[in-house]
């Protein structure tokens, strides 16, 4: 058993694209999207989307600007509804229930599905209060429990050692990369099952980007991660599966190695090799 695991880990690290043998550990499907259509007013932004997202995997969504990748991500926690003119059809099943059903409470969904945004958006509060915000809105008041959550969340985002002595400082004093990792820690504090990331490194320098990517690799041991990215190398580096979106449609959705080394659709290959988008 352990050798199989080790071998799998090695495979992942080496990422040999020619290696055909990859032992499959069955993973539970977290999200199952069937026939999803979405309109912003008259604009048909998502067309017949079908894709499933599994636990303990990183699913990358790539595609040119305006292809609907962020829209799809925001549909997964219904943040897309903050735009009032949005209409949807089809279904997205999350753990057996259709989240697009209006009886599905968005607060429940968003408690289980965390989100990290393109631009780090800490609250104008202390580092501690940023992390404690989520648990507090869910009714945790005990100071000791909150202290533990703050420490664990910051540890989870590998930023505890940097910040432990300045928990009372305003989060706006942190660097951009630290702010984004703080936002990831804040997201962990609610103990979600899924983390949605909307171009989380697009505003960061290469070093901070690398740290976030390493963090994603750690987090996927416990969470399902869906990441929208403009950075092709990033998708190739960190994801297990990649979906290529174009004009609101999924052109191709497969294992990342397959998408990057042997794409089925010519448009996928063109996009990845930088011929458009």
């Amino acid at each position, binding site marked *: 058993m352990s050798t199989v695991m080790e071998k799998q880990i090695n495979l992942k690290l080496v990422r040999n694209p020619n290696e055909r043998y990859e032992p499959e550990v069955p993973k539970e499907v977290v999200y199952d999207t069937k026939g999803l259509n979405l309109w912003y007013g008259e604009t048909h932004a998502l067309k017949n989307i079908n894709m499933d997202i599994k636990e303990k995997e990183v699913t990358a969504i790539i595609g040119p600007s305006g292809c609907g990748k962020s829209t799809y991500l925001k549909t997964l926690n219904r943040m897309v509804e903050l735009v009032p003119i949005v209409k949807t059809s089809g279904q997205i099943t999350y753990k057996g229930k259709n989240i697009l059903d209006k009886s599905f409470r968005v607060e429940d969904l968003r408690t289980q599905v965390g989100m990290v945004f393109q631009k780090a958006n800490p609250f104008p509060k202390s580092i501690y209060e940023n992390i404690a*915000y989520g648990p507090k809105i869910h009714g945790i008041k005990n100071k000791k429990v909150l202290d533990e959550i703050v420490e664990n969340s910051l540890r989870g985002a590998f930023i505890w050692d940097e910040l432990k002595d300045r928990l009372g400082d305003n989060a706006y004093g942190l660097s951009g990369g630290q702010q984004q990792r703080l936002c990831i820690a804040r997201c962990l504090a609610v103990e979600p099952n899924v983390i949605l990331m909307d171009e989380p490194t697009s505003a960061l320098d290469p070093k901070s980007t690398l740290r976030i990517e390493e963090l994603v690799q750690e987090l996927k041991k416990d969470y399902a991660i869906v990441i929208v990215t403009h950075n092709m190398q990033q998708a190739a580096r960190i994801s297990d599966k990649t979906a290529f979106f174009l004009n609101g449609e999924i052109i191709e959705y497969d294992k990342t190695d397959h998408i990057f080394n042997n794409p089925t659709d010519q448009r996928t290959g063109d996009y990845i090799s930088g011929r458009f988008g």
Partner: protein
Amino acid sequence: MATRYMDAVLVEKRMSSRVRKNTGFKGLFFASTLFGLIVLAVLLVRIFTQGIEYINIDFLMNHLSTDASRAGIMGAILGTAWLMVVVIPVTMIIGVGTAIYLELYAKKGKLQSFIATNISNLAGVPSIVYGLLGLTLFVRTLEFGNVILAGGLTLALLVLPIVIVAAQEALRAVPGQLSEASYGMGATKWQTVRRIILPAALPGILTGAILALSRAIGETAPLTVLGIPALLIPFPSGVFDTFTALPMQVYYWTIDSSLVAEYANLAAATIIVLLILLFLLNSIAILIRNKFQQRY
């Protein structure tokens, strides 16, 4: 070599005229600023030289009197204070509540923009019109009489649009990414409003409230319409008492100064007290605002 369009001689010739124009406009803008400053200075100097020697403990603590040397403004100070007791909670609760509804809850559409436009228009309605409204509604229809509650509610209506518009702008200025972060963690709208949006908007809301209060304290016209007297009445001790207020006192003393010349000096002294009160209120509000000031 490519054609050159910038003729060095011509550029040099125009240079001095451009620079002169630049200096000229700077002077013009400075003069505009100076004009306001000088008028304010003249006004203050005149009021202070006229009134400052009349300000003493007796003047502040005494009842009104027809004898100028014994007259005091305690009644007016208390009246103004009681007015604020009505105006502050009414404008803050209704004003901020309206702004929150319009900005965060109401569906954006024709109705919402119609309401918002009309509130802005209300801010420009002459204050005497609010006086008439107060007279009809509070004094007569609701039969409050010309008491503090009627005066306070009238002034509250008068400054409500200012508070609403300022609060709306403050709420709109809160970055959407902050509320997104809150919603993204499963917070309800109310939790997000109370814990994220309101604290971030508070400095702006308070700025609007300061402006509104300053206006309410100094308003005279609506109070004259309500029939607020400057007579020998007991000190007010509740919202259902009759009252007078500082600006009313200034008004009556000024129009009576043709009968008793010294009244003009008492009016000046009252204005000084009013200005100091305004200054104090503004300082407190600025302190509160700075305490809650946040960067984002």
